[in-house]
């Protein structure tokens, strides 16, 4: 059974949109969980020593900022799809373009959409696009996610 019954209903779907602010503990724990020993991701003073205005957020955490800030989260992004988590859902690709470093305390406004669905015999590939701006409306980052949904 295909996980996407009607591609036309899914592609182009806009997420609700919203905001996300990275709190200090999120960046700190993410750095710990990824074995990142750079204290610029844990302490503001260390971040300022490397030219940042505030405690830095690990760049790949931008994926979570995008998904939650878009108002959809992971499950909302998969809405409309017949997902069987037990069959296997896998992260296929992720890409970022950073216009500024990500920092703790900044509120990012995010928009996103389902950009594409590719249907294969044994799996579908879902492409999600997100764009984030900072409080001043300046571009912060853009990210694309490709998720493989087996069936």
């Amino acid at each position: 059974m295909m996980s996407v019954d009607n591609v036309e209903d899914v592609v182009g779907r806009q997420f609700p949109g919203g905001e996300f602010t990275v709190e200090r503990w999120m960046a700190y724990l993410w750095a710990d969980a990824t074995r990142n020993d750079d204290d610029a991701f844990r302490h503001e003073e260390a971040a300022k020593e490397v030219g940042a205005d505030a405690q830095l957020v690990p760049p790949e955490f931008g994926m979570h900022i995008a998904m939650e800030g878009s108002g959809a989260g992971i499950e909302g992004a998969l809405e409309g799809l017949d997902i069987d988590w037990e069959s296997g859902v896998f992260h296929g690709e992720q890409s970022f373009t950073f216009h500024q470093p990500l920092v703790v305390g900044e509120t990012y406004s995010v928009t996103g959409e389902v950009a594409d669905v590719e249907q294969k015999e044994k799996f579908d590939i879902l492409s999600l696009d997100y764009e984030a701006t900072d409080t001043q409306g300046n571009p912060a980052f853009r990210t694309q996610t490709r998720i493989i949904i087996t069936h």
Partner: protein
Amino acid sequence: MKFQDITIGDTVAEKSFEDVPAKNMEIVTALMEDPNPIHFDRRATEQMGRPGLVNQGPINMSYMTQAALAVAESPTDLTSLEARFEENVFEGDDVLATATVDEKYEEDGEGYVNLGLLLEKADGTTAVTGTATVRLPKGESV
């Protein structure tokens, strides 16, 4: 590192991450509110025929990012990052992240390097491939 000290083809960083821990997958699962059971439920991975919990893509990506940033003067100099997840990394695996210079160029008076990134498992399997662009200062050679 300085822009003029970089040569195309250089391997500029290798970072080893041994015995990938399940605990860290659980932390990332909680942080991301990720319902995918492959990251925290061994019954699910067993049913799928996997040898253990699966390391999240963003964690694997972080290992490669750390290799890329080893050449930078500051994490603020990372301008792009991408990853293609080829094979699963499982709990207990040892992996090696490598950054190699693919290209260097100048733009608006600043130096940039495009790095090829690789995350390999101990048995030589390619787990993740990717690229990163890092801005490097131009100055006197060391």
